[in-house]
């Protein structure tokens, strides 16, 4: 993974000192509340319903075992012994004390980490495929481009005070059917690929996003040459910074500007700006990119062969291991290795919540079975990118003991869920108890496997932190005259050929949701052709059969 240069290290240390000074001035009454707000947000501190929340940046979801151990210690020393994996691949703490945040940031800086720009109207952590650099079939690793963007966007002089928050995602080069970074629902989505000449080029999508106004991003440039990545981003950000709406925060995201200008009009504006800067701007620097790439040391993979036969025998002997292998273990680029998803989606535990002990266990596994690296997926699970295949059985047994081996990756109970009304002051409704009730109702693994892959996403309000619009089944908490209700949508998809879900109809009380889910799945099972997935079936039969069943008059 990327290792800091001396400059990177100095930068985070200077930032800690600066923020410590700001916090002290605030506590001494020298900085007004609303002014300090803007400063603390850009250092990751957001005030929630019950306490401040600190969001630590995990650039493109990659961590070392050493870093994860420090995150565990922070959870223990400054919080209540747990942290939360976010849908932006970051780590959040729900109970830090405002006055001690500078100390937390100082501890983070010691292991090349920070919380810069994890909140506020600025460029946020760039996300990517959780299997970047190790996925079978990947031809260009997106991580050096993510790091290039991280550096370029960190305390950018011109683009740190945008009309609204700004999120970018990058996906590596794959067959077009693979998109684990959900690039079409980001302010900017970048697809890395190679052209016919073998050079790296980018397809750039703009104006996607969820929230109140869900939009699928528009492709505004194909085959952007590698040396122009940053000038092109600069042109997009400048147009947005100058013309994005600032009078209404609900209309301030870039998607609203793109819609107002039309994608074609927006593209023209960007191209005009780009023409003016592309030849004079020194930002693009292939040398720098080469330097960054060098700092992503490729781990020292041993020369191993695939253990298919030995694993088959173990799988036959141990059905639990077989289930886990089928759903949590993924093909690796290097023979003899695999990537493993460690599911946090255990019934009764908020999706994405992990204890200090779990973090330490994951760090140990990364050291013992791989190369000391961990990823966080945007589905809020841990990933061990490199695991020797001969260690899989041992890992499975230990992960079981730590509650991290639930074999439900990609299934109905692998729910994406925001913190909801239990923690968040914006939420209209609780989301975690809904997830739990569904996990309780659908607790039979055989049934879950029969249903196949289903993305179930839950948001506690229309800000859509739980990405409900792009869940195959989406659940949105709404407020009806002070009571919590839940609206259900079907057919959303965040992967390639992304689509937004369609609302089923009137909303339901929390108690009704599991039963309604049952009816929806009954319709799917009754109409399914062969091995069709829920999404494929929905796309074929449409929403009507679901409506008819769910809203049928009861007898």
């Amino acid at each position: 993974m990327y290792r800091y240069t001396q400059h990177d290290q100095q930068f985070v240390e200077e930032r800690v000192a600066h923020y410590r000074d700001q916090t002290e001035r605030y506590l001494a009454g020298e900085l007004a509340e609303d002014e300090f707000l803007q400063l603390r947000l850009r250092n990751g501190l957001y005030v929630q319903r019950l306490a401040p929340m600190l969001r630590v940046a995990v650039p493109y979801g990659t961590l070392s075992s050493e870093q994860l151990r420090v995150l565990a210690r922070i959870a223990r020393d400054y919080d209540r012994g747990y942290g939360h994996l976010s849908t932006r691949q970051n780590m959040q703490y729900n109970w830090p004390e405002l006055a001690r945040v500078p100390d937390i940031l100082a501890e983070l800086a010691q292991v090349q980490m920070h919380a810069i720009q994890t909140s506020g109207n600025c460029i946020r952590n760039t996300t990517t495929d959780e299997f970047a650099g190790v996925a079978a079939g990947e031809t260009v690793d997106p991580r050096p481009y993510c790091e290039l963007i991280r550096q370029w966007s960190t305390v950018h002089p011109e683009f740190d005070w945008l009309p609204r928050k700004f999120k970018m995602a990058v996906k590596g080069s794959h067959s077009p059917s693979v998109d684990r970074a959900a690039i079409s629902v980001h302010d900017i989505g970048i697809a890395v690929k190679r052209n016919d000449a073998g050079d790296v080029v980018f397809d750039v999508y703009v104006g996607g996003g969820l929230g109140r106004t869900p939009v699928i991003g528009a492709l505004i440039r194909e085959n952007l040459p590698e040396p122009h990545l940053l000038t092109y981003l600069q042109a997009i950000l400048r147009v947005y910074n100058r013309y994005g709406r600032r009078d209404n925060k609900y209309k301030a995201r870039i998607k609203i500007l793109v819609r107002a200008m039309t994608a074609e009009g927006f593209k023209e504006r960007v191209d005009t700006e780009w023409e003016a800067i592309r030849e004079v701007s020194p930002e693009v620097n292939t040398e720098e990119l080469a330097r960054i790439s060098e700092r992503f040391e490729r781990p020292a993979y041993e020369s191993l062969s695939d253990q298919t036969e030995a694993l088959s025998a173990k799988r036959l002997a141990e059905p639990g291991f077989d289930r886990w292998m089928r759903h949590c273990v993924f093909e690796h680029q290097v023979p003899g290795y695999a990537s493993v998803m460690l599911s946090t989606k255990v019934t009764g535990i908020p999706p994405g919540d992990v204890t200090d002990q779990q973090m330490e266990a994951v760090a140990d596994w990364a050291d013992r079975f791989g190369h000391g690296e961990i990823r966080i997926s945007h589905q809020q699970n841990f990933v061990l990118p490199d695991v020797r295949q001969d260690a899989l059985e041992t890992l499975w047994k230990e992960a079981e003991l730590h509650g991290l081996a639930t074999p439900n990756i990609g299934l109905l109970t692998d729910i994406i869920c925001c913190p909801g009304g239990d923690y968040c002051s914006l939420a209209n409704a609780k989301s975690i108890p809904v997830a739990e009730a569904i996990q309780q109702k659908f607790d039979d693994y055989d049934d879950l496997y029969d249903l196949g892959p289903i993305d179930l996403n839950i948001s506690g309000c229309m800000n859509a932190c739980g990405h409900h619009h792009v869940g195959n089944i989406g659940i949105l908490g709404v407020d009806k005259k002070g009571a919590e209700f839940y609206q259900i949508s079907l057919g959303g998809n965040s992967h390639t050929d992304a689509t937004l879900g369609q609302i089923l109809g009137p909303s339901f009380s929390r108690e009704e949701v599991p039963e309604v889910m049952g009816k929806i799945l009954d319709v799917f099972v009754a109409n399914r052709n062969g091995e069709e997935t829920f999404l494929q079936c929905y796309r074929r039969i449409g929403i009507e059969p679901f409506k008819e069943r769910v809203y049928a008059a009861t007898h």
Partner: protein
Amino acid sequence: MPLLIKSGESVTHDEQVFLPLEQWLESRDQGLMLEVDDEPQAEFAEAPAIAVNFGAFNDGRGLSLAVLLRTRLNYTGDLRAVGDVHHDLVHYLVRCGYSSFELDERRDLNVALKGAAIHANYYQGSVKQPAPLKKVA
């Protein structure tokens, strides 16, 4: 009385007058007062000084406008941030090409002066330091 910083130092007295665009077009030997959403025009380069009025300290349009004045019009005169200028954000203003700052008297001049140099080096190029950082191990 507002506080003024010019060329990195606190200044007590300044005679510069800034006129709104319509009036300035009639007397171009005076300073020009712009709003953050004004479009840069070639003739602005004639102004002996330009002020940009920040309605709110967190309005980033004033940053892009400064960059355009400096890099697109190659404006070399004094460029002043006025209005709701926040003493903690002076480093952004400096890097985007502002050369002087008028702060409300409730602001902390020392923070503003110190705030211009929080980091020894930044990642990106800027108006102030056009070449992006060459990083070393």
